[in-house]
């Protein structure tokens, strides 16, 4: 199904939309423009017009589908269960295959990101190491002071501050291939850990925290070395062939232990959403089994039960608020589990922000390809965060984490960004020290 065209889609997928409009108030681009073509039902109408032969595929239509963040908020709001994800990915793939469509800048960026960086874990690690040297040497400060990025053009100047801060050690150094619960903790079973691509180099601490939380709850953790990108970035950006390739690679890395694992844990909302849908991509029996085994970390903890961290005076009390990653709440429909984890934390008061399930504008590589709309969407998110008065905003996706962090830093805000699993790991460590 992955390399078909809009016209080949089962027509009932397009027809399922009854254009009731319930998706409109949840759509970030409709919120920005109040124009129907920038809304889910408008885009579906355009795709239906293509299927009906009333509209030609061209630059306008490609622009429209690229303007969509793919946040999937519409799929949660939809009363009729429209499969927008399939439509969206099919449309993007079809339009990317048309040579006349796209600007040189967009094509180059997309090519570099999809084909060069995210396809090869070792290449990504190399980029990560170079960035780390650049950042830790203080070179970055001088480059910015001298406004060197501006010499390379506006887009580089915009992109440079968005580069994630690299972790001092990457996941493979921070986590051994196999780790087992310490003495005194009863072993409940084995799980695999998806360490992710960006997560591995920019958020290896989150991976470490995830492993610690799992160990503390009695799970042995298997983390294959130099894991490949899961392919979610490729699937969402119209490169289904590459998505298939990366998906297969990743599955093979877990193959030798697969049967003995109780679950395969993802701690990034965006990846998890894609990782649970390998069957529709690869159409194979192993993929079907794989889909069943992949669990979001919060989902796994709440389904299997997790230890509530003991309270203590040493824990800093404060207010926190939760930003839901789109592909965790809309893609995977996981809303309560992360809150359950957060509510178990001693010393923190949880205050809900308005529209916690609205996109932050990161949306995979959207913030690189569509910086202006991304900034508008981010601005609305920052307002919601600030209105809560929280000292800490938590989220469970590297893209959201970076986007919000960059936004807060640029706004001069003191609000910290963190992840639920990291706060839980810290609470466990604190409780052990007492």
């Amino acid at each position: 199904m992955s390399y078909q065209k809009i016209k080949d889609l089962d027509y009932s997928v397009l027809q399922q939309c009854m254009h009731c409009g319930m998706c409109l108030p949840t759509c970030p681009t409709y919120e920005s423009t109040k124009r129907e073509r920038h809304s889910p039902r408008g885009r579906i109408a355009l795709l239906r017009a293509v299927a009906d032969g009333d509209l030609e595929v061209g630059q306008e239509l490609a622009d429209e589908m690229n303007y969509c963040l793919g946040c999937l908020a519409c799929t949660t709001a939809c009363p009729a269960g429209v499969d927008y994800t399939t439509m969206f990915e099919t449309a993007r793939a079809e339009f990317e295959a048309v040579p006349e469509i796209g600007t040189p800048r967009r094509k180059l960026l997309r090519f570099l990101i999809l084909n060069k960086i995210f396809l090869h874990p070792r290449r990504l690690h190399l980029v990560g190491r170079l960035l780390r040297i650049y950042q830790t040497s203080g070179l970055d400060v001088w480059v910015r002071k001298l406004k060197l990025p501006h010499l390379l053009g506006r887009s580089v100047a915009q992109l440079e501050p968005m580069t994630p801060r690299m972790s001092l050690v990457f996941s493979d150094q921070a986590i051994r291939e196999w780790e087992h619960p310490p003495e005194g903790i009863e072993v409940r079973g084995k799980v695999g850990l998806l360490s992710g691509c960006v997560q591995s180099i920019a958020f290896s601490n989150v991976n470490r925290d995830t492993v610690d939380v799992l160990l503390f709850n009695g799970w042995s953790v298997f983390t294959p070395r130099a894991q490949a990108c899961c392919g979610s970035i490729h699937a969402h950006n119209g490169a289904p062939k590459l998505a298939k390739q990366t998906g297969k690679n990743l599955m093979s890395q877990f193959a030798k232990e697969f049967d003995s694992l109780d679950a395969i844990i993802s701690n990034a909302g965006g990846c998890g959403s894609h990782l649970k849908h390998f069957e529709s991509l690869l159409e194979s029996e192993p993929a079907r089994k794989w889909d069943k085994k992949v669990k979001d970390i919060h989902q796994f903890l709440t389904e299997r039960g997790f230890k509530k961290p003991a309270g203590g005076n040493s824990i800093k009390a404060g207010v926190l608020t939760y930003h839901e990653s789109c592909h965790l709440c809309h893609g995977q429909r996981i809303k309560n589990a992360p809150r359950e984890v957060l509510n178990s934390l001693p010393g923190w008061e949880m205050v809900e922000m308005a529209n916690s399930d609205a996109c932050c504008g990161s949306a995979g590589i959207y913030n690189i390809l569509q910086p202006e709309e991304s900034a508008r969407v981010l601005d609305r998110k920052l307002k919601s965060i600030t209105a809560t008065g929280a000292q800490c905003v938590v989220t469970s996706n590297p893209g959201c984490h970076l986007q919000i962090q960059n936004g807060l830093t640029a706004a001069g805000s003191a609000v910290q960004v963190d992840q639920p699993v990291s706060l839980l790991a810290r609470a466990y460590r604190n409780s052990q020290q007492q």
Partner: protein
Amino acid sequence: MAFNIAAFEKIVGTDQVITQKVDLIPYGFDGTAELRQLPAAVVFPATTSEVALCVKEAGRQNIPIVTRGSGTGLSGGSVPLEGSLVICLLRLDQILDLDIRNLTIRVQPGVITKDIDAAAMVCGLFYPPDPGSMKISTIGGNVAENSGGLRGLKYGVTRDYVMGLEIVLANGEIARVGNACVKDVAGYSLKDLFIGSEGTLGIITEILLKLVPRPSARKTMLATFSSMEAAAEAVSAIIAARIIPCTLEFIDQVTLRCVEDYCNIGLPVQAAAVLLIETDGHPSAVDDEAAAMQKICEEHGANEVKVAGNQAEADKLASARRQAFSSLARVRPTTILEDVTVPRSKLAEMVGFINETARKYQLKVGTFGHMGDGNLHPTFLTDEKDHEEMKCVHQALSEIVDKTISLGGTITGEHGVGLAKKEFLNRQLDESSYGLLKLVKKSLDPHNRLNPGKIFDLP
């Protein structure tokens, strides 16, 4: 037809007029199934005077006008006509004044319905009409269609809250009808003429709405019955006991099973009818009424009555009714939502007839709706690509309409006539009142420019 776009661009600005196919296709429909037609252009005025200028210009160019808000209507009221100009009012989206001494709110037509109640809530006030699309529907559309909602029995419908209107007439003149006075008998009640006029008599550009104090307490219960008749009897007994619940909703067995298939929340799928009942008001009155209603349901053959102890339980009980439409809508590709309405005492008979008709034509029809006010939502689950089945759907619908009328009911309780119910209207109305509609239209819009061909055809 020659269409001078530049004249409209001059009024609203070049970026507020769209004419390209890729921009227009998403304006070719509203929330109604099967209806689709591209307009010639869509304009987005920002002020009443821009609306008036657009109407005058359309008059000069002899172009029909279709007014639109969020396009969520369910009778085709805002579906464009060929060659028409769509005037979309979403940019008139300001709440102009909230008057807590007179309990009124003055708004522009593009304000989202839910935002009006949210603004009222801040001051402890309440805007009760709650159409199913309130998260995105505009108040202008609600007034034009006289929308209902779940609270009709106790709180009435949109009409009951409209105190005054500003209207751009067919000739481009601006009229103000009604005012902030509770009592006002100066001349005909012209505002009532425009409420529910479906965009055929004028364009509403400002609305003065009445607000009421917000009830401080609410209690929710769910009762299951083994027959629709028993449920209807229980409802009649509740009202005979001089209790007016704020919510009295039912779902039938087909709907119940679809909800259970989709949500897996352990609903009693053997039940023939489930009632969701809510009472609101002063806390002590609410407790008394809830206890009385529970007793009445039990005395009238309820298999089970669950009363919510807190908000979380209330939400859980209400979820079956809340999920009704979405559970039905995902069964088949095309969902046709109807809104025939009968006097409350005839409701069980009407539901029975709908089920028989569905069986006769081998159609899947789930029925849910507002038991308190007799407003039913028979929902046809079908596929518009299956022409044979669609013929049966239309035949079944026609029979349901005839039965509704024979029971003293109405072909539409809250969605409006628009295009979808046009062919049925003269079955319900007698010749002179049907003629009266056309007479009104001809006097107010002699050139038949505003939403022509909606509600009825003029020769």
